[in-house]
Every structure is written in structure tokens, then in C-alpha cells.
């Protein structure tokens, strides 16, 4: 035993590219600083923590930009287990920006709530740190570590309002199903490792191909995909999402429905493109079914919701189906690039729009203290600005030009049709029908705001705190930019080539 170990080449310290790791390092430092400062702050000084958190995010964004501008190509560390390429940079940028906007959304909410403030920001920072790591992970182990890193704080965030039973329920459900999903995924990973002898995605990709499929390999892939299907709340693994979204604090729901979901997709995309590109016969049909089910079931149930957050939970499930849709043809050679672009563009468009929606919900519920869709009645007459912005966001989610969401949907359809074939066309038609059905519930919110009177005739104006105004400004500009000048975002989509999959 010892002899075999000794025969392995002597250990030498890996070279570390600190520039490439800077976003993670800054977030980690920010996390520690917030934790320490919290210890020494009086209760009335706690507002400082949210500023520290937002500065950490803004600080972490800087190296992402400098890395993107440096033309040294992809930076690979630890034998290719941690890669900083264009794909990961785009998503790191997205995660960090989402983190920043969520801080803005949370600031007033956390100040006004009667709970531990310091811990909130610490958990938020560590979850984003996990996501940023996820974008670079190219190894089963580091993917799993990143996933737990981002999930465990998220479980705790969901249960943050610990004296509220629904928040407890949210956290417990999320935790139990999340752990279950992790277990399934881990089991799949162990099978894949056992069958291929490596945890490095590139090596797995080389040995897993359709011609050498054994049942163990198939089972491994299936379990891994199912594990991520839980994370992205794809039907039929979505059951945790509505209760968790409804019970969790609203800014946390925004965070979960955008960032956490995106992180799941990032990992799924990485695995599909680097570890399983030659095993498309196994996962393509699975994803096809998941996409069709997710879009349809999410939509149909969303139609019946009366609570806005629950409606958005199902809407976010259905949107997840649209992101899965192009992945169902990701194994087709011609369309691989356009699928990747579609997923990235969709994630960006969906992120800015959905954060905006939650911004409006937070602003309105400060006045109405209600989560019912009916509480938006008459919004247009007493807060036309908020109503107009909500209209933009709802239209964007529904995919109506010229607001961001349309281009995400368009890119998804385009990549699907470029692959061609009966299955792709069928899925495109299912998607087209669903995008019309979706207007049923997005339009319901519009109808409530524009065409119905305010409940109880209460037309007192809404006072929107300045962090929320800033968050709404960022998300509105983002939504309009993606919609009117999609060229800007597709630029990122083009950059986003996964080095491993495309000859890097």
C-alpha cells in the first residue's frame, strides 16, 4: 500500500493563479469581514453590514471584468479542475450582480425585520461564493463541493424568519429535498467515477460515449441529471419549490429563484458539454421529457394561483422548462454553440427580469402587507411608476418584445429549430403553445394592476426605499437592454464557449 503510494509522482504544490481566483478571494474576505464586524457592532450600527456586503459584491465584480479583458485565454488550475474561461466569467459576473441586486432588495427588508442581520449577509455571501466556484468547477468533486457550498446557506436563508412557521416549513422542505437530491447525485457521481476511473470531467467525457455504454454508466448519468433536475426544480422534481418560495423571506425567494436556479443550470451545462458530450443518447431524451413536462405543468398550475409568490414559483418552474428546452438538442453538433448561447442569454434575461418582479413585490407588499395577486388591484392608479415597471417585467417573462425575455425565448427556439428533426420541432411547438398559455397568468397580474380597483379603496401612495429604487433601476435597464439591443448580450453568449467542449 505504502509502496504504491510512494510510486506516485512526488507531490508538488500546484501553481495558483491569484488573479483568476480573485473574485472568490474577495468574496471570502468580505464574508469574514462581515462576520467579524458583526461581533463588534451595536444594534443600531448593523446597517453597516449591508453596505459591507454590497461592497464585497462590487469588489468581486472588478476582477471578473479585468479577467474578461485580459486576453490570456482560459486559465486552468489544479490539472484542469478549476478553469476560468469566458463561459465561467460571464456566469460569475451574473452571479455577483445578482448577489448585489439581492442585497439591495434585502436591505430594507432585513432592517425592518426583527431577526439576526449579520448572519443574513454572511449566508448570502457564502452562497454566492459557492456559485462563483461552481462556474469554474470542472471536476465531480469540486462541483459537489460548490453545490453544497451554495445550497447549505440557502437552506438556512429560507428558514431565516425562524419565528414564522411557514419560513420554517420552507427551510425544512428545501433542506430535506435538497439533501435527498444531493444524495442521488452523489450516488450517480460515484457510479460514473467507478465506471470511468476519473473525477475530472474532461477524462470522463473521453471515456463515456454511446458506443461503450454499460448499465452502470447509464445509471450514473441518469442519477446525476435527476439530482440537478431537483436543483433547477424541473417537473416532476419540483414539489419543494412552491412551498419554499412562498414561505421564505421574499428577497431570499428572489435569490433562490434566480441565482440558485442558474447555478444548477450552470453545473448541468458543464456536465453535459464536458463530461457527457458523447453520451447524448442517454440524456437528450431525459431532458426532452423534463423540458416538456416542466414548461407545461408549471404553466398550468400557475394559472390557478392567487398568491403572487406562489404564482411566480410556478412561473419560475415553467421558465426553467424553457431553459431546458434547447438543452434537449445540445448533443447535435451543429447546434451545440447556439444552444449554449441560448441558455446563457436566457439565464441573463430571466435573472434581470425576475429580480425586478421581486423588487416590485417587495415595494408593494410594504404597503399592502399581502401576497395575494388581488392586492395589486388599482396599482396603476396610485403608483403608476411601479405598475409600469411591473408591466415591463411581466411582459418580459411572457416573452413579448421588446422586453428582455423575448430574446431568451427566441434564442431557445432558434437553437431548437437549427437542430431540426421531428423531436426538436415537436418540442418547439409545445414551447410555443406554452408561451401563449403563460400570458394567462402574467396577464392576470397586468389586469389586476390596470383594470381593477384597489382593494378596500386604499389608494395611499407607496413609499419606495432608495435601495429598492436602485435595484429596480438596474433590473429595468437590464430588461430593456437585453430586449432592444440583444446584440450586447449575445456578445457574452458568443464568448461563452466552454473550452473543454470546443477543442480548448
Amino acid at each position: 500500500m505504502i509502496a504504491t503510494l510512494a510510486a506516485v509522482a512526488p507531490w508538488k504544490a500546484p501553481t495558483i493563479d491569484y488573479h483568476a481566483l480573485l473574485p472568490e478571494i474577495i468574496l471570502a474576505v468580505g464574508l469574514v469581514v462581515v462576520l467579524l464586524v458583526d461581533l463588534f457592532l451595536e444594534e443600531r450600527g448593523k446597517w453597516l453590514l449591508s453596505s459591507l456586503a454590497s461592497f464585497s459584491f462590487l469588489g468581486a465584480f472588478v476582477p471578473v471584468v479585468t479577467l474578461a479583458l485580459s486576453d490570456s485565454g482560459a486559465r486552468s488550475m489544479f490539472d484542469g479542475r478549476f478553469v476560468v474561461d469566458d463561459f465561467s466569467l460571464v456566469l460569475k459576473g451574473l452571479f455577483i450582480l445578482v448577489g448585489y441586486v439581492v442585497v439591495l432588495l434585502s436591505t430594507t427588508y432585513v432592517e425592518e425585520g426583527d431577526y439576526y442581520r449579520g448572519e443574513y449577509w454572511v449566508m448570502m455571501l457564502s452562497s454566492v461564493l459557492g456559485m462563483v466556484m461552481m462556474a469554474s468547477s470542472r471536476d465531480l468533486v469540486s462541483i459537489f463541493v460548490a453545490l453544497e457550498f451554495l445550497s447549505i446557506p440557502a437552506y438556512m436563508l429560507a428558514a431565516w424568519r425562524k419565528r414564522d412557521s411557514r419560513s420554517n416549513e420552507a427551510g425544512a422542505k428545501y433542506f430535506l429535498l435538497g439533501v435527498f437530491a444531493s444524495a442521488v447525485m452523489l450516488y450517480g457521481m460515484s457510479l460514473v467515477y467507478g465506471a470511468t476511473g476519473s473525477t475530472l470531467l474532461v477524462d470522463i467525457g473521453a471515456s463515456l460515449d454511446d458506443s461503450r455504454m454499460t448499465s452502470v454508466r447509464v445509471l450514473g448519468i441518469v442519477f446525476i441529471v435527476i439530482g440537478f433536475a431537483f436543483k433547477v426544480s424541473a417537473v416532476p422534481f419540483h414539489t419543494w419549490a412552491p412551498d419554499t418560495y412562498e414561505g421564505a423571506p421574499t428577497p431570499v425567494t428572489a435569490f433562490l429563484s434566480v441565482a440558485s436556479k442558474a447555478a444548477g443550470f450552470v453545473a448541468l451545462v458543464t456536465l453535459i458539454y464536458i463530461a457527457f458530450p458523447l453520451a447524448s443518447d442517454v440524456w437528450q431524451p431525459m431532458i426532452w421529457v423534463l423540458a416538456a413536462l416542466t414548461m407545461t405543468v408549471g404553466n398550468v398550475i400557475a394559472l390557478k394561483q392567487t398568491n403572487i409568490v406562489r404564482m411566480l414559483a410556478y412561473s419560475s418552474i415553467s421558465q426553467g422548462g424553457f431553459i431546458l428546452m434547447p438543452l434537449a438538442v445540445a448533443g447535435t453538433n451543429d447546434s451545440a454553440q447556439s444552444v449554449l448561447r441560448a441558455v446563457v442569454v436566457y439565464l441573463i434575461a430571466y435573472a434581470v427580469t425576475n429580480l425586478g418582479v421581486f423588487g416590485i413585490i417587495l415595494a408593494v407588499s410594504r404597503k399592502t402587507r399581502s401576497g395575494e395577486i388581488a392586492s395589486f388591484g388599482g396599482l396603476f392608479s396610485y403608483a403608476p411608476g411601479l405598475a409600469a415597471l411591473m408591466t415591463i417585467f411581466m411582459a418580459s417573462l411572457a416573452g413579448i418584445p421588446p422586453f428582455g425575455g423575448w430574446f431568451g425565448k427566441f434564442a431557445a427556439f432558434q437553437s431548437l429549430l437549427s437542430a431540426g428533426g421531428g423531436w426538436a420541432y415537436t418540442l418547439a411547438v409545445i414551447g410555443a403553445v406554452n408561451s401563449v398559455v403563460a400570458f394567462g397568468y402574467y396577464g392576470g397580474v397586468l389586469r389586476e394592476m390596470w383594470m381593477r380597483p384597489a382593494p378596500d379603496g386604499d389608494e395611499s401612495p407607496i413609499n419606495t426605499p432608495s435601495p429598492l429604487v436602485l435595484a429596480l433601476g438596474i433590473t429595468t435597464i437590464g430588461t430593456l437592454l437585453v430586449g432592444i439591443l440583444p446584440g450586447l448580450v449575445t456578445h457574452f453568449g458568443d464568448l461563452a464557449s466552454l473550452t473543454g467542449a470546443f477543442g480548448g
Partner: protein
Amino acid sequence: MDVFRDQNWVLSVGTFLPLAGVLVMLFIPKAEEQLHKLVALVTALATLGVGIFTLMQFNYDNADKMQFVADHEWIPVIKSSYLIGLDGISLPMYFLSMVITLLVIIYSWNHIPNPGNPKAFMILMLVLQTGMAGTFIAQDLILFFVFFELVLLPMYFMIGVWGGENRQYASLKFFLYTMFGSALMLVAFLALFFKTGAESFSIPYLVENGGAIAKNTQIWIFAGMFIGFAVKVPMFPFHTWLPDAHTQAPTQGSVILAAILLKLGTYGFIRIAIPTLPDAAIEWAPYIGLLAVIGIIYGAFGCLAQTDMKRLIAFSSVAHMGFVMLGISTLTTFGLNAALFGMVAHGLITGMLFFIAGSVKERYHTLEIARLGGMLKQMPKLGWILGFCSMASLGLPGLAGFWGEFPAILSAYNPADGLPVETFRTFMIIAALGTVLAAAYLLWLFQRTAFGEPKAEFSGHGGHGDHGDEHSDIHDVNMFEWIAWTPLLIAIVVFGVVPNLMFKVLDPAVAVTLKAFGG
């Protein structure tokens, strides 16, 4: 000056100027109602000014060529660009959209429907104008799609917020129908894009290369576009949203809907579906013709059955758009000219009729035909304008409606090569019967509302005591109505007497469109 020689800015300015007005209005508080109306009016006037400049600078000898072309990079990865241009087919509709928006804004000066809020109303109107104008100049399918969809939300809110009692149902129906159509249309656009080699979304490129697609594929792609455009026209059997939308919409919404929005569909057929997919067009033409004549007859009978004036006019739109579609389905230059003329004529005349309906509603608080009557005695000017427009609408020679209807029927006598002549001649006869029905329902409408004595409840004596103040609303045409209506009335006469004003612009461009059919 270079600016005037190099004119690729003209169309962009004309299209997006209304949004500049919107931007200004966003920063004016809601309470400044007069100021909002003023800004909207000035914006619409300025936009029309750009439109008149376009009209003057347009080279009529080259009406078959795209003019004022601008081509900028927009979404390079999907090979879509900001490509705009104007030819003889687009020019009349482009200009009409500017005129109608201005007139509607003038009409709104003292006619803001309940629940008020001119700020939002005018902003939506101006956004709508950008969408409409943009659709007529877009020469790239994706750009076309974006503009085509841009009109949806403003119209949805216009109906849903400022509409009648059943407004929420009507607005949602309008929206879902149109959205369903455009989803299929978008899939068809994408299919066309891939089948022509995934090179470009530019319409001229697709026109050049679309003909090479296998016939069966063309037929399927055409089907997607057909549904998208046919919903908008609307053709039988996709028309059911129209009566509801028109009846519930505020007057301004109805006018814009009738005058411009419906034409987005027919324009789509002429600009995109037919030239890009010529083989499919030949296959589809008899069915389009069939649905068109069904629409003519069905719309006419629908009119005869209505008891509500506005709903009657809405059904007459179904019939009139049937004539337009019949002209298109012949695939001849003659038919297409007639269709394009019919689009403008219907825009002017039906737009006018909806204005009148709005004013009647405002005065009598009802559009129930049975309760109206004696308008010529009470409000002779309004009554005669209604009479004039009814005549124009039924296609009286000498007024604009004639030149859309009569040539469309005539064109069916001799459809393009490859189309079944007997079938189209049958269509011709049925369509001709449709004109008789049109005369019937329009004259009947005129007779029941304008002739005779005013009904007791409105006549000022013999009415119920508690209705006494209702009569105070009954007054003849007022100044804002005159300003808004006179241009339309004059145009109806001018185009009726000198139809060549428009035909000479349309004809060269139509000939280019139908190049593939040897016609």
C-alpha cells in the same frame, strides 16, 4: 445640405419620434392633463411633419425600389439587422398611420374616455404609433416581428382600461388570439430562415431565396405565417376576437384598430408571405380566396343581425377585409393594387364610422340601433356625415371605398396563372352578392338611426322626467370633431375621384412583389 441628400435618417426619426414625446411625458406629473395632451399633440404633429417630408422626398418614379434605406448591425449572432426602407406599398400605410394617430389625439382633446388619465392614454397612443409605423418600414423579419408585437400591449391596455363594460374579457381575447398567431408566425419565420441557408433575416434576401425551398416545406411555412397574419386581418374563422375588441374598445382604440392594426395582417401577406413563398402562395390562394368570400358573406349577415351600431361596424370590417383578402388571393397586380387601395380606403372610411359611433355613444349614451333614430333632425351634420360614410363604405363610385371593392371583385375574374379560374369566378359572383348585402346593412343602419323622428326618450318632450338631463349631451358636431374628421372626409372624396393618386404609387411596387408569378 448633406443631411437632406443622405436620407437614411428619415424613417428612423419618423418612427421613433413618438417615443421622444413619451419620454417627455414620463417626467410631467399626472395632474397636468392639458400639458400631456399638448405634448402628445405636438409630438404627433412633428411626426406627421416628418411624414410629409418623407412624402415630398419620396421618389415617385422609383416607387418600386426601397427608399430611405438604413442598414445597421443589430443582433449579429442571429443575422438580424436594423434594415428599414420604404417603397410604394409601405408608403400609404406608413403615412396613414401618422395621420390617424394625429387625428385620434385631436379627437381625444375633449373625449378622454373613462377612467380618464390622459397621461397614460396618450403615452400608449404614441407607443402604438411607433409600433405601427415600424411594422410598415421594417425590412428584416425579426425587426418586423418586434414592431408587430409592440402594438399588442398598448392596445391591450387601451381596450382593457378605457373600454366598455366587458373590457377585460375582450382585451384578453384580443391578446391571446394575436399572441397565438404571432407565436406560430415566429416559428414560421425561423423555419424560413433555416431553409434558406440560415444566412439572413432580411426580407429582400428571403424573397430572392425563398422560392428555392421545396414546395411541401413552403406550404408548411406558409401555414404558420397564414395563421399569424390571418388572425390579425382577421379572416374567417379567426375573426371572433374582432367584434368583441371593437365593441369594447374606446372610440380611439376602435379607430386605430380598424384603420391600421388590421392592415398589419394584410400587409404581412403582401410584404412577406406571398413574395417569399411563391409556390406555397399558389397552393394556398384558392383557400384564402374561399375564406375571404366566406368572410364577405358571413360578415354581411353578421351585420344584418346586429342590434348595436358599433358591433355592426365591426362586422362590416370582417366583410371589407374579405374583399381585401380576395384581391390578394388572386396574386395578380390588379388584385394586389385593389387590396392595397382597399386597405387605405377601409382605414379612412371605417375609421370615420367608428369616430361617428363614438360621438353617437357620447350623445345618446347608447348604441342600441332600436333606441336611435331621427339623427338628421336632431343633429343634421352628424347624421349626414354618417350617411356619407355609409355610402362610401358600401362602395359608391366616386368615393374611396369603390376603388378597393370593385377592382378586387373584378380581379377574381382573371386570377394569376396556375390558379383555378372557375373557382375564382365563382368567388367573384359571391363577392358581388356581398356588395349588395353591404348596401343593405349600411343603408338599413343609416335609415334606422338617422331617418324618422327622434325617439321619445331623447326628444326632449315626452321622455321620462328623470332622464331630463340626458338630452343636454345631444348637440351637433363640435370643433374638435370637425378638425379630426375633415381630413378623413376630404381624403375619402379625393381618393374616390382621383384614385390614380394612390395607384401610381402602388403599382410599380406591386409588380416587383409579384415578380415570381410572372404578373
